[in-house]
Structure formats: C-alpha cells, structure tokens
C-alpha cells in the first residue's frame, strides 16, 4: 500500500481526539466498528495551501479570479504541504485521482451516472476511467435519477460500493425519494443488516449565469435526512482527500462539489492521504472573529480577509467542510478564542446550513459569545439569469468586510 502522508507543521498537532484510534472506540464497538482493521493516519488539514492563480478556464476565468479566488495562505502548515515535491493539478483532476486510486484499490468501487463513461463526465471528473475499467464499472445510465440512485443503493446493499454522480446537484431532487427513504434510512429500518456505502456526488451551487434550476444548493434540502453524512470540498487537496474518505466510509456520504471551483489549481502531495470526513479545516488562524464558511464562499471570505487584514483585523477562517455533522470541536475552540462568529454561506437564508449552524452554536457556545451570531447567506430568491442580479443574490466580499467591521465594533 502507498505510504501514508503524515507531514504536519508546527501549527497543528495530531491530537488524540482527531486521530482515528481504534482502541478509543471500544466503548461503542458495535458490529460495524469491530471489523475496522485499517489504521491509516488521518491528516488534520490546517492551512492547506491555496493557489490564488487559478487558471485554465479562459476569458471567463478572469471574472472568476476577481470574484472568487483564494489568497495565498500564510500559515506555517502550508509549508508542510509544500515540503514534499507533490504535483500540481486542477480540482476536477484531484477528484479523478482520488476516485481512480480507490477504484484501483477495491474492485467493488464503481461509478454510475449520466455521461460518466464514454463522455468522461460533464465536468471531466471521470475522464479516462471507462476505457480503463470498462462500461460496467463506469456505467453510463439513462436519464432516470430516481431509479439509478435506487439502483446504486440496491447494489450497495449487496456489497458493491457505488459512486453515484448527479450531473448537476439539482438533478438529484429527482432522486430525493431514494436518497431520503432508502439511502438514509435503510440501515436503520433493516436493524443494521444492510449498509449503504454509497457516495453521491455532483456539482452544485451558483455558477456563472446558469439560471435558477442549475444553481441550486441542495445541502440545505438534504441536511435533515437522518443517516447520511454531507461534506463539501473546496480545494484540490481536500477534494481528493474527501473523495477517498467518502468512498472508504461505510456510511452514505453526499459530496458537494461546486461548479466554479473545478478549475482551481493546487500542488498536492504525491503520497496517498485520506482526510477525515467529520473534521473542519483551519484555513487561517486569527484572533478577532471566527468566520465559518464552506465551498465557494471560502474564496470570497479569503478575499475579504485580505481587505480586513489591511484594515487591521485578524479574522480566523474555518472551512467547515463537514456539513453534516458539524465539527463542533474545531468550531467551539475557535469561538472560545474569538467570541465572535460570522457565518458565510451560499445557501439561502431560510433553512440553510448557516441556519442550522447558527442554532448549533447558540445551543452549545452561547456563553462564549460577545455578540449575536451573524449569518450571511444568499437571498431567498431563485437565482436570476442576469449577471448583475446573480451577483447580488450571493454574498460578496465587500459584504463580508462590512459584516466583520460591524461585528467587531
């Protein structure tokens, strides 16, 4: 097996709480846990390096760069990631790399979705896999989301480990029946007899004038379903790590990618690594305010952070990554330090991830707050087509700067 990457800089340490230690879990040794034999080290990814120069998209990319790009992180941990030579790739390639490594490792891992095979995936995440692994392992399905998602679930019950791709996350609304009733619930209603190790993935979020139906944030709709986990990737580094972790997990995991982030470039380690599905990522340590975000909004936040730093603020930015369940440890530690919380999300105001996070923080860390929790979300409107209107539906860096200034008054 490939060696496990364990390079961590001074800023983070593998505390026992974050290290998956099979001994620690003796207390809840249910049937599922007792079979755990792997002991790969899980990387506490603090300050993954973000490459500001995302490129390769062309003309439109320039717009993307000004609007959504990350700043270079100046945390020590970034140096650790750069200490080994690594290789540079785009986010969709990182996803593909993770997927391919897992398919190589376990013959039961298969992919199903529309245009994943011969076409290579509408965002090229599965390009080259069908010629290599065959039409059955990389299955081109007809346009029947509800049914092929259910088919993936049935296959998972019988021992396979399918990755079900929604060409756009919004299409998975058609599969809601299967995702809610079967994916989330079957392990429970069968009394633990059948596990559903599926990964449901696809791009979502507000893109570049894609129109209302192609710009949906399904994390807010799925978050109530019991029995599923949801993670959102935002960098090539965490995309690959989360993809691998999701595939290896015995739980059904929904991996949210973002349409605008597929062409982000980053240097990732050559060694094999798997990230922890339940952990958040410390993007930028700070003292004054905790900014919680995920997916594309991470880049808006980091852009705002540049401005804030110039103005003398020191924001702590955390990419929560795990949308369900929340990593209340990382979040809590941060709140205990800064006492101010700003949540920046792309979900809509009503019932989004931010709303749940606000409630969770209020419940657990109320005593540590010096100010009310501020949550910046998208407007409760269907995403308009017009570029100007679309810009105003999502949170932009100036709004983030203003919110922090208000919060830190």
């Amino acid at each position: 097996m490939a060696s496990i990457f364990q390079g961590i800089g001074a800023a983070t340490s593998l505390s026992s709480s974050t290290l998956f230690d099979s001994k620690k879990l003796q207390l809840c040794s249910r049937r599922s846990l007792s079979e755990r034999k792997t002991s790969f080290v899980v990387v506490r990814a603090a300050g993954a390096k973000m490459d500001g120069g995302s490129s390769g998209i062309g003309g439109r990319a320039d717009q993307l760069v000004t609007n959504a790009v990350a700043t270079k992180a100046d945390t020590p941990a970034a140096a650790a990631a750069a200490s080994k030579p690594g290789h540079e790739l785009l986010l969709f390639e990182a996803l593909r790399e993770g997927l391919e490594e897992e398919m190589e490792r376990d013959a039961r891992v298969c992919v199903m979705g529309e245009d994943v095979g011969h076409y290579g995936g509408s965002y090229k995440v599965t390009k080259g896999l069908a010629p290599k692994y065959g039409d059955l392992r990389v299955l081109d399905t007809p346009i029947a989301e509800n049914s092929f998602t259910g088919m993936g679930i049935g296959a998972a019950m019988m021992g396979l480990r399918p990755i079900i791709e929604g060409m756009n996350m919004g299409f998975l609304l058609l599969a809601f029946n299967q995702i809610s009733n079967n994916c989330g619930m079957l392990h429970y209603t069968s009394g633990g007899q059948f596990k559903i190790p599926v990964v449901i993935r696809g791009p979502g979020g507000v893109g570049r004038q894609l129109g209302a139906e192609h710009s949906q944030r399904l994390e807010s709709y799925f978050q109530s379903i019991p029995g599923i986990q949801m993670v959102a990737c935002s960098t090539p580094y965490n995309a690959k790590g989360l993809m691998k972790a999701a595939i290896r997990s015995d739980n059904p995991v929904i991996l949210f990618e973002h349409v605008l982030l597929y062409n982000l470039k980053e240097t990732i380690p050559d060694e094999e690594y798997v990230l922890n599905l339940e952990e958040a990522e410390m993007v930028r340590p700070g003292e004054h305010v905790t900014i919680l975000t995920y997916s594309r909004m991470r880049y808006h936040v980091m852009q705002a952070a540049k401005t804030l730093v110039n103005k003398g603020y020191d924001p702590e930015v955390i990419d929560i990554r795990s949308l369900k369940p929340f990593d209340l440890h990382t979040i809590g530690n941060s709140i205990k330090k800064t006492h101010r919380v700003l949540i920046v999300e792309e979900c809509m105001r009503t019932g989004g991830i931010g709303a749940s996070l606000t409630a969770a923080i209020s419940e657990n860390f109320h005593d540590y707050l010096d100010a009310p929790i501020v949550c910046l979300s998208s407007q409760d409107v269907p995403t308009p087509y017009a570029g100007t209107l679309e810009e105003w539906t999502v949170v932009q860096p100036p709004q983030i700067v203003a919110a922090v200034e208000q919060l830190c008054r």
Partner: protein
Amino acid sequence: MGLARAIQPLPLPPLADSRPKPTATASSLFLGSTRTLRPSNTFARTHTRTRSISSAQRRSAVAANVSDVKLKPATNLLLTKEEALEVYEDMILGRVFEDMCAQMYYRGKMFGFVHLYNGQEAVSSGFIKLLKKEDSVVSTYRDHVHALSKGVPARAVMSELFGKTTGCCRGQGGSMHMFSSEYNVLGGFAFIGEGIPVATGAAFTSKYKREVLKEADCDHVTLAFFGDGTANNGQFFECLNMAALWKLPIIFVVENNLWAIGMSHLRATSDPEIWKKGPAFGMPGVHVDGMDVLKVREVAQEAIGRARRGEGPTLVECETYRFRGHSLADPDELRDPGDEKARYAARDPITQFKKHLIESKLANEAELKAIEKKIEEVVEEAVEFADASPAPSRSQLLENVFADPRGFGIGPDGRYRCEDPKFTEGTAQV
C-alpha cells in the same frame, strides 16, 4: 374553432371491463400463462395490438402468449410430491400467519399500517419456492408472506410486527420493512415503486459479480414484487428500461389484484394490460392466473431460467386478488362483495391446490391436515415467542443509524459523539 374538433380522444372504456381480445402470437415458452379470465366484451383497439406485435417482432422478443381461455389442467410432471407438499405448506403458512396478524392487530399487539396477503399466496409460493438462498427478493409493504416464503422464520417476522427487539429488524422496521440479510430479503418498502430500483441494483450486482469480479458461477436472480398501482409509476418504467438495456437477471412480478386501496386498476390505467408493457421495453411480458400456484410456478420457472442464463429480465403479470382490505385499517367498501369478491373467493388458491393434490394423488387428506396442524403450531409458537420477547431498550435508539457511528460527528469536547457513554444508553445528544 375547426382545429378544436380535429382530434378526438378515444372514448374511455366502460367501467365494467375493456380488455380487447388479443390475437394469437407465436408459441411461447410460458406454458402456464393464460389470457384474461375476466368476462370481456371486445373493445376494438386494433392499432394498439398491431403496434405491440410489430415492436415485439422487431425486437424478436417473445410477446405474451395466448392460449384459450379454458384453464389447462396442470400436469403432475411439474411437481414431485416433496415439492408439492413444500409449496402447500408455504401457502398455508402465509394464510395462517396473516390471519393471526389480523387477530393480533385487533387485540392491540401490533399497530400502524398492516397489509395482509390473503388470497395472493399462489404468487409468493409459486415464485419464491423456486429460488436459492442467495437469490434476492424485493417486496412492498405487503411483505410478510414474501419474507416467510423466502425462509425468514415466522417468529422473527411476528416479533418484528410486535416491535420487539428479537424481530428480524430489531423492531426498527415494522410491518412494512421486512429485511433479512441472511435470506436476502431486501425489503419491505413503504412507498410504492421505491423497491424496484433497489431490486434492479441487486440484479446489477449479480451481473457485476459475474463480469467484473469474475465470480463465474454467480447467477443470482432478483424478484421484484409490486402491485397494479405501481405499474403506473415512473420508477417502474425507468427500471424496465434499465433492466432490459443491460440484460439484468431480474423478474418483475406484478401482483395485479385490481385495486390500489380504493382505486380500481381500470380507472387508473390507460391500458390495463400490464404484461404488454414488457415488450415495449424489449422484454417478454407474460400474463398468468395468479390464483393457480402451478401455473405461476411454470411461468416462474421459465422466467427465472431466462434470468439465470443471462437472457435478461421478464415482466410477469399475475392476476390475483386480495381477500381482505388494503390494510387492516381499510373498511373495504368499494369492492362489491356479491360479484367480484365472491368470484375470486371461489378460486381460493389454497382450496384449488388442495383439490388438485388430492385428485392427482400427490397427497392425501391426512398428510395435508398434518401440515395444517403443524403450521398452526408454528404460528402460535411465533406469537408466544413475540409476546415473551423484550421491547427494545433505550440503548437501541441511536444504534444502526449509521453503519459507522462516527457519522454522528465530533462533539464540542473533541471526542466523537459515539464515544460518549451516553450514546450506548440512547440519551446522548447527537
């Protein structure tokens, strides 16, 4: 103005019935199958007939056969005495168990929605008794008897209905969610149609094991049972397409009992002959008398054989009837007791089969009585077992939500929630 009159929709068929007399097609391998047994006056829809035949010819798929309306007497060659008694015992188990369920429900031992299978035993026994343990069965909410036929012990099913921890799903599923990983019963689904894709996935796995994982002898088939109401649902059609496209080893068994709660099949379906929908997707569609276990078994044998040989899926429409209401909460007022119910009661599958066994000398009265007595004892013992079993304790609440309980996440104290001692007590905050 003129345009509005140009296209007239076809007049709706009269409620009484509407089945056109289909023409004979090429001889079929499905020997037991028959044409409609319900009284019919012809309602000429020749264009649909030609369409379905030509599409069948084009695909060279076997269209539904047509034999004359008279029931052919089943031959003894279909069953050995041992098999016959096994089938009889299974049907009796199904009937006695369901009757006991009704009793227990009205005595307050089980709650919620309970859907009983009385009258449809021939379909379950006819199909499932031909399966191996590794074959899979997927059902709907009317799943008790499918689970029993597949081999799940009666006491496990009864316990599950009572909501006890010794139930096949630890009391967490209930009447509509019977699962067994040991006997490959993949549920038990409350929403109609949602089990069909799961069945398609199980069939896909069988093909995957054979072709990708190179388990050359893997010829496991999957049976998907569902009703006439489901045959109008999108998931049904989507799965017919995928199963035929990839030649999956699955048999779609429609238990057409004519009623979806209070909705008559004829009022809900533009073309009530469900078997016809098979050839439209490139698979054989077969109609069979679902009250005759021998005919069902004959058709099942061929369909399962097809699937095992890798020839692809089959759609089988079993004409059957449920003697009780849709569920125990259904007052069952819309079905006319005088005509329809009485007619089907006269064709009780168990009575028919018993008569056949005795007439063809496969068994005698005494042997059959012994079986009936044995089953009564089995079911009574199941009730006693269920009664004596404990209800789930609080500690069971949070188990089984996730296969990997780390899915509950990391709590504020930095430990995984599942490590909290209160987790095993069922009182942890998750």
